[in-house]
């Protein structure tokens, strides 16, 4: 029961996570910069069972399970939750930046899948099970997958099958199969459908030959067939399954089989991406070094909390950004180099650099129920520094976003900015303009760009490459810097 003292202690900024409502046993909320989880009595009993397992300490110690403590009392709980059934409150370690599976590369989704299965196997050994199998329960700390939904553990009930199997297929297995076998990226599908790919849909995109491939016959073909046949008899089947004596060993066998299937899946970017991964763009060595230095001077000039490197490519500048930023997002529309960057960072054990694949001309929107379950990028944390290097020509020319629009979007983030402008004479710009009607994109021009940039930011620094076709700028949010006069001759 809530006491007056508890009410007065409750932080004023407590608010529910709008995306956390599907599981009635546990709801996430924020207060005073921390992440909490309110549990029902059942949820609390399940958590206490988890606390007594060996896996709880083991997986927290190696960083695969989010750090969690049970609080005494429920004083941090928002009023609307207290009115309902709240028996206990957990406090979680905060993940630096939330990301979603439709922004992950193939190996990121695969690693999240393996973590989910390993946790489930460890849980089964100690009489628990994960009640669901959604990749939204996994987050990345840099290149490290962390399972964040402690409320997913529950005590195993005798006679019940692996409840999360179907969800695992829809949100992990099928997306991975789609990309590994068909070379079709799973991202548009996962972004378009919050529940993932159904067995019937997956069956429809498979050929006859596919049924002989590992993991397909049982998980796709037979699964879709059984679902079509028995779809309307959920309760009946559940009681028949129980009566037939479904036991833990069967779940373990199924989870192990799934693990082998996932482990066997692989996807590699096209060969050209591998070659380009180690190379620089159209820069001379001296210019490349000057660009490195420009970025390094900005990122080390003051401590930055969150830097976004948009158009990160092979992550060269994301790594430089990490020298002066607490946390860095490396975002690129091309999954290939991001996949390779993720693999490298994973080998290094990096926890500071989060790789995401996303087209910035069509970025992740707010999604789900009322558009609140999944947030757009800025809704998850605005950066204090953005690197937009070798990007604006792709956005303005290839994606037809007006220069002023793009700069306005950057300014709306309230961030400082390092931006590169390749002029119309730059080989890459010429290549992009080549197939277009002459005279298009008149706004893509240096003087106009500088006018727009100076209107939206305080531009403090400008530097031109020796080839003369690329310019670098450092700018602060309007009203916070000491602007230089861009109309004056370059110094």
């Amino acid at each position: 029961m809530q006491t007056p003292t508890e009410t007065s202690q409750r932080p004023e900024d407590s608010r529910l996570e709008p995306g956390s409502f599907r599981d009635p046993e546990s709801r996430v909320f924020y207060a005073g910069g921390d992440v909490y989880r309110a549990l029902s009595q059942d949820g609390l009993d399940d958590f206490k069972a988890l606390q007594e397992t060996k896996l709880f300490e083991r997986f927290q110690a190696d960083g695969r399970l989010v750090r969690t403590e049970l609080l005494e009392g429920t004083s941090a709980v928002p009023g609307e939750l207290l009115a309902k059934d709240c028996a206990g409150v957990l406090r979680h370690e905060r993940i630096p930046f939330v990301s979603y599976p439709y922004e992950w590369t193939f190996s990121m989704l695969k690693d999240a899948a393996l973590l989910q299965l390993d946790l489930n196997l460890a849980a089964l050994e100690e009489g628990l099970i994960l009640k669901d199998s959604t990749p939204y329960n996994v987050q990345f700390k840099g290149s490290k997958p962390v399972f964040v939904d402690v409320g997913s553990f529950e005590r195993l009930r005798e006679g019940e099958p692996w409840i999360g199997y179907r969800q695992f297929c829809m949100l992990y297995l099928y997306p991975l199969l789609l990309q590994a076998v068909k070379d079709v990226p799973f991202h548009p599908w996962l972004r378009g459908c919050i529940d993932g790919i159904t067995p019937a849909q997956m069956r429809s995109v498979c050929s006859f030959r596919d049924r002989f491939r590992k993991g397909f016959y049982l998980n796709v073909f037979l699964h879709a067939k059984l679902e079509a046949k028995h779809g309307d008899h959920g309760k009946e089947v559940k009681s028949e399954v129980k009566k037939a004596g479904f036991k833990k060993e069967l779940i373990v066998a199924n989870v192990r089989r799934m693990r082998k299937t996932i482990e066997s899946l692989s996807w590699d970017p096209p060969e050209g991406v591998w070659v380009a991964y180690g190379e620089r763009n159209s820069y001379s060595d001296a210019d490349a070094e000057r660009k490195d230095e420009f970025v390094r001077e900005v990122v080390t000039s003051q401590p930055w909390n969150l830097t976004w490197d948009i158009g990160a490519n092979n992550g060269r500048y994301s790594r430089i950004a990490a020298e002066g930023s607490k946390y860095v997002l490396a975002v690129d529309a091309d999954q290939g180099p991001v996949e390779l960057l993720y693999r490298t960072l994973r080998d290094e054990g990096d926890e500071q650099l989060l790789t995401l694949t996303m087209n910035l001309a069509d970025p992740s929107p707010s999604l789900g129920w009322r558009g609140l379950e999944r947030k757009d990028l800025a809704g998850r944390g605005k950066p204090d520094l953005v690197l937009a290097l070798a990007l604006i020509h792709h956005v303005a020319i290839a994606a037809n976003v007006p220069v002023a629009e793009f700069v306005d979007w950057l300014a709306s983030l309230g961030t400082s900015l390092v931006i590169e402008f390749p002029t119309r004479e730059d080989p890459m710009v010429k290549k992009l303009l080549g197939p277009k009607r002459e005279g298009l994109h008149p706004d893509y021009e240096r003087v106009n760009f500088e006018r727009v940039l100076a209107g939206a930011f305080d531009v403090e620094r400008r530097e031109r490459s020796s080839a003369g076709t690329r310019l670098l700028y450092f700018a602060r949010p309007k009203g916070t810097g000491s602007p230089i006069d861009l109309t004056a001759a370059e110094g």
Partner: protein
Amino acid sequence: MHLLGYLDPGSGSMILQILAGGVAAIAVTARFYWNRILKFLRIRKDDEPAPEQQADSA
């Protein structure tokens, strides 16, 4: 205590797990289909409601 999870396990998905369980599943599969045959031949009547059904109708 609630007995149904918030997630629908999918009936086809449950049967699949019985079939796909390998050696561990042989006896369970046999029992599952034997019960179905008996039910089909009307040798066995429909089962009494499972506990979760009782909880639901409560």
